[in-house]
């Protein structure tokens, strides 16, 4: 059984005026420990697939299982618990809470967990150390550079030691040098066994992925895993 199993995933956004098909029936299996790149142009459905993987957006049709758990069979609150325990999000716009320090932002996923303050601080400092920001723990997001903010966001995604990290264009708003640093950091985490699904439109990032899938108009256009098999054949 694969770590992530997506079967015939469809998502249609309906409004009074019209219907937009964001995903038209995508099936995908991802092994544990994989660094998967989801690529495609704007409107290809890559962000939608990440939202559905993250338990944030109900699919119109199809099923999705992570580690054997069918996400959308869970109730609303159980799904929130799943996000907290299984997933780490890294957003393009960092999405740090502006009035909390770097350390407090990192501790956010722990805020609703029954855990002593010292343990929370220890974990937060540990992951901040891993992303090289131990000395910036007391700074507010506004006092950090874009790259540092992205690192804080990655640290926040790691603090709960989730089995899966979902990253949405983490390098989208960063310069080339900082982008490479962030990609190197994600690759390092993946090398330590972390499963990562990352959405990007930047072809330069392809080299970091184990596997790349291309989406176009809500459909799976190309999967590097299939190409490898064909090449092998």
């Amino acid at each position, binding site marked *: 059984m694969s770590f992530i199993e997506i079967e015939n995933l469809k998502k249609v956004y309906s409004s009074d005026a019209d219907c937009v098909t964001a995903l038209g029936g995508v099936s995908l299996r991802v092994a544990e420990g994989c660094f998967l790149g989801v690529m495609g142009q704007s409107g290809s459905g890559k*962000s939608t697939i*990440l*939202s559905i993987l*993250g338990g*944030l*957006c109900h699919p119109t049709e199809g099923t999705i299982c992570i580690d054997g758990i069918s996400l959308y069979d869970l109730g*609303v*609150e159980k799904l*929130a*618990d*799943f*996000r*907290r*325990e299984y*997933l780490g*999000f890294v*957003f*393009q*716009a960092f*999405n740090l*809470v*502006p*009035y*909390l320090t770097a350390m*407090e932002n990192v*501790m*956010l*996923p*722990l*805020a*609703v967990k029954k855990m002593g*303050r010292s343990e*929370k*601080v220890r974990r*937060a400092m540990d992951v901040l150390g891993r992303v090289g920001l131990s000395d910036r723990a007391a700074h507010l997001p506004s006092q950090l550079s874009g790259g540092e903010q992205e690192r804080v966001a990655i640290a*926040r995604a790691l603090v*709960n030691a989730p089995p899966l990290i979902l990253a*949405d264009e983490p390098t989208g708003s960063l310069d080339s040098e900082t982008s490479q640093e962030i990609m190197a950091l994600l690759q390092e985490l993946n090398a330590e066994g972390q499963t990562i699904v990352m959405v990007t439109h930047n072809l330069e990032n392809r080299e970091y992925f184990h596997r790349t899938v291309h989406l176009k108009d809500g459909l799976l256009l190309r999967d590097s895993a299939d190409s490898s098999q064909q090449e092998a054949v």
Partner: protein
Amino acid sequence: MNLRTIAWNNLKRRKTRMIFLVAGLLIGVATVVTIVSLGQALTMEAQHRMENFGANIILAPKSDELSLSYGGIDLGGFSIAVSEIAEKDLDKIKEIPNARNIAAVAPKLLGSVSVQGSRVLLMGVDEEKEFHVKRWWTLEGRALESNDELVAGSQVAMTLGLSLGDVVPVNERRMTLVGILHETGSQDDDLLISTLDDAQAILDKPGLITMAEVAALCADCPLEDIVIQLTQALPNVKVTALQQVVKTRMHALNQFQTFSLGIAAVVVVIGALVVFVTMMGSVKERTREIGIFRALGFRRSHVMNLILTEVVAVSTLAGVLGYLIGMGVTSMVMPFFSQAQEGGHSVVHWDPMLGVGALALALVVGSLASYYPALQASRMDPTEALRTL
């Protein structure tokens, strides 16, 4: 790091919004506190004044005869035998269950005496209590201080041509006129007033009194109960309550309090609306932030708790400040109210129960007004909130 930390940091960051929230609640709470405490203070002042205003219970000898006088007009022709009460019987008043509500007991002995060939009504009084109970008496000269002194009503003084310092023979006992009452428009104008001891000696009725006036007036004292208790304690005495005085005064105060509480209720509703609108604005402003919380695994209940935690903090602050400001305003305006009502006894009591009530009011109003915005926030679709995924 927990929900309280996040709430506290948010309040610290959004100071202006917090000030609006606190102000909205504070004005409502302070208004209620002001009105309630002012009402309490005015009630107490009114009670005090009413105690000074005079007696509201009359103790008179029991008689089977019907009174034939009305409004000061006595329909003569019926000679009603006047009996007396033993002065020492008044001690029993101190033993009734509601004795603490008895402010003053003013005994009197009445009798007809001869002065310069005219018949005049002499009233012997306990000089200290009588002049305390009848605060509206104003004098030329001074009040009684000892035996062999006399105060004359204005009408008596004029009719008999008495002036201060005169030595007046009363039933052949020589007494000095030390004071003349200014006109009261009542029966007091026709009296000669002496100490009770002198009157008992002159009228030859030692240890006896004709009647006593009792001042027992307060908002919570059951006048009917006091009358029953006095009747049981003094079986041979007729106890009459002057209900009208009490009821009119209390009715006026109750009307004032009802009206004031109506205004306070309107202010509280406006305060609640301010909180509601501010919280709705806050939730809208924090849409993205709430989306982050939800994406990171906060349950709907966690988001509700987060917002309600902030509301509890704001409401507590508004409750405490509202109480202090409300009491401060009462302290400031009370002298004006007192002055308008003949001045006197104006004390504002810092009632801890009112403080607890103010806090509870702020918490209830704040929570109710914020419940819907908090519910809206908790039900927010995280994807819509983030708009990035």
